[in-house]
C-alpha cells in the first residue's frame, strides 16, 4: 500500500481512522478529504486503498466510488459507514466497493477486518448476505448468466446468512477460506452486473432504452 485515501467528514472519526490505517500500513502515504468535492479532486494519482464514508455533507460517497472506478480501477475500495443500513451497503457493493466496515467496531476488530479486506478477503454480515440473496431473487430477467448466482455462490451466501464466519463456511463446504473470499468477490461483481441489468430492465419497461456507457 503506497497511497491511501480516507474520506470522512467527522474530524474525530477521521483522526481515529488515520491512526488505525497508520498502524496497519506505517509506510503508506495517507491523504484525507472531508467532502465529495475535495475527494474527487484527489483522485488524480494512483490510489491503492480508499476508505470512503457514505454520508458526506455535499453528497454521497457513491460518487467518489464511481470516480475511483475510473481513475484507479485497481484500488481497493472500502466503504465505511456508521448508520450504514443494509440497503446502502448493497448499493455501494453494486457500485464497485470491495467491502465495507462499520465505524462503530472496536479498533482491534476494525484493524483486523481492514487487513483482511486489503488482502482480498472480504466478509459479509448475515443481514447483508440475506439482502443480497433477496436482491438476486427480485432482479428482473437477467440476459446473461453472468448476472445470476451459481448454486455454489448461493450456498456460500446461505451459510453466511445463518451467521457462519468465512472459515466456518470453508470447513462446512470443504473448501479453502480464500475460495470463500473468492466467491464473495464474484458475488459483489455480479451485484454490479445485475444492478445494471435491473436498471436496463426498468428502463426498457418505461420505454427509455439504455444509454450506452
Amino acid at each position, binding site marked *: 500500500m503506497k497511497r491511501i485515501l480516507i474520506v470522512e467528514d467527522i474530524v474525530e472519526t477521521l483522526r481515529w481512522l488515520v491512526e488505525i490505517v497508520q498502524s496497519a500500513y506505517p509506510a503508506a502515504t495517507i491523504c484525507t478529504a472531508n467532502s465529495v468535492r475535495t475527494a474527487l479532486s484527489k483522485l488524480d494519482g494512483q490510489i491503492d486503498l480508499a476508505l470512503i464514508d457514505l454520508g458526506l455533507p455535499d453528497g454521497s460517497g457513491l460518487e467518489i466510488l464511481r470516480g475511483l472506478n475510473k481513475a484507479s480501477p485497481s484500488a481497493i475500495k472500502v466503504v465505511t459507514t456508521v*448508520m450504514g443500513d443494509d440497503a446502502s451497503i448493497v448499493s455501494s457493493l453494486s457500485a464497485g466497493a470491495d467491502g465495507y466496515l462499520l465505524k462503530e467496531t472496536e479498533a482491534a476488530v476494525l484493524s483486523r477486518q481492514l487487513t483482511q479486506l486489503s488482502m482480498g478477503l472480504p466478509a459479509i454480515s*448475515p443481514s447483508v448476505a440475506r439482502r443480497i440473496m433477496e436482491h438476486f431473487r427480485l432482479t428482473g430477467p437477467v440476459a446473461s448468466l453472468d448476472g445470476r448466482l451459481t448454486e455454489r455462490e448461493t450456498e456460500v451466501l446461505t451459510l453466511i446468512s445463518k*451467521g457462519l464466519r468465512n472459515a466456518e463456511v470453508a470447513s462446512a463446504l470443504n473448501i479453502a477460506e480464500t475460495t470463500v473470499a473468492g466467491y464473495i468477490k464474484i458475488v459483489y461483481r455480479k451485484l454490479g452486473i445485475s444492478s445494471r441489468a435491473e436498471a436496463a430492465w426498468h428502463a426498457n419497461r418505461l420505454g427509455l432504452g439504455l444509454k450506452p456507457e
Partner: protein
Amino acid sequence: MTRPHVAPGAVFALCVVLYLAAAAALTWVATAQPWLGLRLGVVGQSVVVTDIAQGSAMDRDMIGKRLLSVSADNQPAIPVTPLDLIEEPDGIGDQETLRRFFDRQDRLHDALRSGAVTLTFDQADGPESVSVRVQESRPVSDLPMKFWTQIFVAFVGMFIGTWVVCLRPHEQAGWWFLLSGIGLALASSSAAIYSSRELALSLKAYSVACRVNPGGSLLFGIGMVTLFLSYPRRIVPKPVLWLPTLLIGACILLVLGPGWPDKLNNAPDMIAIIMVALLLVIAAQVAANRRDPAARAMLGWLGVSVAVGAGGFVLTSILPTLIGLAPVIEQSTAFLFFLIIYAGIALAVTRYRLFDLANWSYGILFYGLGVALLLGLDAALIYGLSLGRAPAFGIALAAICMVYLPLRDKVWVLLKRNREIPAEELYRRVTQIAHARDPEDKQRLLRKFWSDIFNPLRIKDQPASTTITALQDDGRILTLASIGNLPALSLELAGQGSRLFSSRDLARADAILSLLDASLSQHETYLQAVSAERLRINRDMHDNIGVLLLSALHTGPRERKDLLIRQTLADLRELISNPDQTDWDLRDLLADLRAEIITHFEAAHITVTWQADEITKGRISHRLAHALRAFLREGTSNILRHSGATEAKVQIDLKSDGVQLTLSDNGSGFDSSVASLGNGFRNLRNRFTQLQGAFSYSTGAKGTTLTAFLPLFSTQKEAAAE
C-alpha cells in the same frame, strides 16, 4: 320566458340569435331603398352634392353642385330643400310643415323608385338638368356609420336587458329594465332607418318608423321610471308602480293614435318631461336609501349612469330642438349616450351585485357575446361570397378551409370550454385533491376540478349534511354529496350557463366522487400507517436508544461507556435497516448475533463454541429481541474483559414456551461487587423480569455461567408485560 327546464344560457343564446336576425332584417330594409349614389349635405340654405358614393356610376363633376329638384320621367319636378335632409322628423315643430315633409318625401321616393330621374342643379348660367339611373338597392357598404351605431345601441340594450332577466327571471326590476332596453332598441333601430336615408323614404316607411321611434322612447321612460320607483327599494305604494305605465301609455296612444303625425312634435316635450321625472325619482331613491350604504353605492353607479346617459341624450339632442336650435350633436351619435347606462350597469353588477348578480353572471354574458361573434363570422362569410368578392370559387373554398373553418372552430371551442378530461389527468387531479394537506388548498383544488369538468356558472358550498348526489330544479343544479372531509357542493348550470345537467352528468359525477372517495380513504389508511410507524419508531427510540444512551452517560469506566455507545449504534442501525419490521425473525436475529459475537471472540483469540437448536421459524417482538441481544453482548463483553478465559460457549435451547440462553467461560470468575459489573447484571435481570423471563449467574474460580430464559411464544404474556 324562462321555464325551469330550460337553461338560461340557452334562452339567452336564442335571444341573441333573434336580435342578430332582427339587426340583419333592419339592414335589409335600409338597403332595399332606391339609390342614387350621391352624398348630399346642407350648405347655407341649399342642398349640395358633397361627394359621390363609392361604387356609384355618377359623374364626379356633380360634386359641389346645388341640387334644386328631382323629377321622374314626364312628371313635375319635386323641389329639394334642406328640410328633406333633416335627421329626426319629430324635431319639425309645426304640424303643417311635418305633413308637407312626409308628402314630399313620399313623392321623392316614388320618383326614385321609377328607376330613372332628372336631377336639376343650380348653375351660374341657369339650371342644368342631368338624367340619371337610380339603383334599385343600396349596397351595405354605403350605409353610414350612424346606421351601425344606432343598431349597435339597440343591440346592447336588448342584450344587457335579456341577460339580467335570464338570470333573475323572478325579479320584477329586471323585467322593467328589459322593458327600457326594448324601448331603447325600438327607438334607436327605427331612427337608424330614417336617419341614414340617402334622400327620401316612403310615407309607409315613415308611418312605421316615426311611430316606433317615439313609442320606443316613451317605453324606455316607462321602464326606467318604474324601475327606479321600485329599485333598489320600493318608494311608492304598489298600485302607484303602474302609474308611469298608465300616464306614459296614454302619451303613447296620443302620439301614435289616429291623429298621427299631428302629435308627433309633442314627443320631444314628453320625453323631456319624463327625463325630469326620472331624475326626480332617482333623487327620491337616493333620499330613501341614504342609510343603506350598499343601495346608495349601487344607486351611485346606476343612477348617475342613467342620468348622464339619458340626460345627455335629452340635453344634446332634444332640448336644443325644443328651444328652436340645431341639435348640438346628431341624434344618431347622441344615442351613444345610452351605452353609458349599460356600462354603468355592468360596473354596478361587478361592484355591488346589482340585481343580485355576481361576477359569475358574466360567464353567460360572454357566452352570448361568443354566439354573436360566431354568427357574425358566418354572416361575414355569406356576405363576402354573395358579393362575389372572392376572385374564384376555388380560392374561396381554399380560404374557407384554411382560414375560416379553423377560426370558427377556435371560437366554438372557446365558447364551449367543455373539454373532456383524459383519464390519467382525472386520476392525477383526484389524487392531488386527496393528498392536499392544507384544507384551503384542498377546497381550491376541488372547486377548480369540478369547474374544469362541468364548467358550471357557479359553484356553491352546501351544508355538510348533504349526502346525496342528485339533480335538482330540473337539472339547473347538480348537488355533490360531501365525502370524507370534503364539503358538499352544488354546481349551477353547466357550460357557463349554456346547458342543464343531464343524467349522464349525474352518472359521471357519481363515478368521479367514488374515485375521490376511494383515493381519500387510501390516503387516510396511508396516513394512519405512517403515524403508527412513527409511533413505533418513537417508542423504540425511547425504550432502547434513550435508555442505552442514558446508561452510557451515567457510566464511569470508559470501556463500559464505549460498549454502551456501540450497542446504541448497533440498535440504531437495526432500526434503520428494518424500518418496516414490527418484529424480528428469530432465526435471522440469532444469525446476526452469532456472526457478531464470534467476530469479537476471534479478535480476542478466544475459542468459542456456538451450540444452537435448529430454529425453523418464529418471530419475536422488538423488546424481546433487545433483551436477547443485551444478554449476549453484555455477557461477551464481560468474558472478553474480566474473565481471562480461553474458551467460551454459547448455548441456545428452544423450549416449548421460550428460549433458554446459556453463556459460559473457563475463566477465573469475577467479583460481583465491582460496581460496573453489578450494574450491568442488575439491568439485565430487570429487563428479563419485566418480560416475564428469568436471569441468573454463577461465578467461581473455574469459570462463569450466565443463564436466562425468555418466554417467546406466549404473546399474551408479552402483551401483559408491555
